């Protein structure tokens, strides 16, 4: 008999409409280096087919399985079971509307991402070939482009919990900064205009939960700080 892992998983069935409850499961430790997603898959495939969660690539690239694991946001697919205190409490991302079990409504999150207009904006005519970047200009994007929009940072931010309807949140602002620092983008002024708002941007009070939560080890607080500096620079 192999070692058993104890889990306590958040369950909510919208068709029944009852109060959400934590359900206990026991899963065998099937391989060394087993990840939390493997345990959830075992529950779904062997024990209880009705357990609902998002998953896709299974290796921290797609950002589907952002969950609250023992109180800390992270991706189930890259969180090793070994380092977790048992029973492992698995809950949906905090402050989000739960659709079912561990699945939350990400509409508002992605709408905020759309609000920062995450595409290249240019004024100059399209050149015959590519818009080139030097290696140094490209390096400016390091720490921004890796974001997979899993929502771990934004849903860990107290400012976003209180004012999520207006504060854009760390993920969207990290992406906003990604376009502001991009040497090929020509709409920095317009972007800063769109961000200069006491709620949209200045709700960030450097709590730094986002940095702690990010599974890709990015630093949204630094990105937000950079946006504030850019606005400061054009005012003073």
């Amino acid at each position, binding site marked *: 008999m192999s070692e058993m892992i104890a889990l306590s998983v958040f369950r909510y069935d*919208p*068709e029944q409409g009852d109060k959400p409850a934590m359900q206990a499961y026991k899963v065998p430790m099937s391989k060394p280096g087993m990840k939390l997603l493997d345990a959830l898959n075992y529950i*779904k*495939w062997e024990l*209880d*087919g*009705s357990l*609902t969660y998002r998953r896709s690539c299974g290796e921290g690239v797609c950002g589907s399985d952002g969950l609250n694991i023992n109180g800390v946001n992270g991706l189930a697919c890259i969180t090793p079971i070994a380092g977790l205190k048992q029973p492992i409490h698995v809950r949906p991302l905090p402050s989000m509307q739960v*659709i*079912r079990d561990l699945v939350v409504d990400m509409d508002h999150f992605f709408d905020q991402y759309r609000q920062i207009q995450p595409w290249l904006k240019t004024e100059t005519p399209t050149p015959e070939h590519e818009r080139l970047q030097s290696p140094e200009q490209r390096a400016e994007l390091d720490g921004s482009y890796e974001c997979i929009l899993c929502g771990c940072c934004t849903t860990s931010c107290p400012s976003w919990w209180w004012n999520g309807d207006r504060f854009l949140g760390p993920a969207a602002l990290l992406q906003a900064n990604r376009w502001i620092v991009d040497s090929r983008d020509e709409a920095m002024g317009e972007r800063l205009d769109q961000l200069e708002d006491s709620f949209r941007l200045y709700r960030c009070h450097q709590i730094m939960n986002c940095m702690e939560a990010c599974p890709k080890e990015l630093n949204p607080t630094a990105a937000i700080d950079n946006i504030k500096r850019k606005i400061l620079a054009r005012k003073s």
Partner: protein
Amino acid sequence: MGGIPTNRFGEVVYNGPEGERSCAGLYAIGEAACVSVHGANRLGGNSLLEIIVFGRACGNQVMKRLKQHRYHPALDKDCWQKGVERVESWLGELNRSGGSDCNIANIRLRMQTIMQEHFSVYRTDEVMREGVQRLETLAAELPEARLSDGNRIFNTELIEAMELENLMSLARVTAAGALARIESRGAHARDDYPDRDDTVWMKHTLASIRDEHVKLDYKPVRVRPMTVESFPPRKRVY
């Protein structure tokens, strides 16, 4: 290594009575498509070519078509029924007992195991023949499979079940196509036929499932570039 056959505009093509015809308004690009530039083999990756050349060509073609055909043609009144029936057939009969033999995950695991054991990198006729048999037996079990989750809100087990149906069809045509191709080409490496045979096998396999049976057909590879001379295929060496 395969895909939906398209022309160079990304339009899906099919073989009609008057030869190759394109299917108006239906497009395939990228991983899903097979424009046939790389011949019958896609080893080495053609994603850049797909993005830069055919992705763009397809986009241009879509715009061109939308200018001429501003609105969608009228849909058949009952066109939704097939899709709804497929979902309802899964949700209709649930596995209340929780037996694991007929659940989705179990069948999927067995399918994966067969494909791994019988259609991995190095293949022989004997191994593949057995694999096709095992796979067909397993595919016949699929209609017996039952969901345990009858919820109509965010039912991921239902999605897994429908994905399994698609995967099973793909596994069957992949297996049948591989068994029929008596040569080695690209990732299809046969121990019993180690050499590439361009005289007979430089052609695409067109597979379909009709009346529960896999049917194979072939079509030639496009080897004539439009503006330059073609260079003859050679043996690939490393």
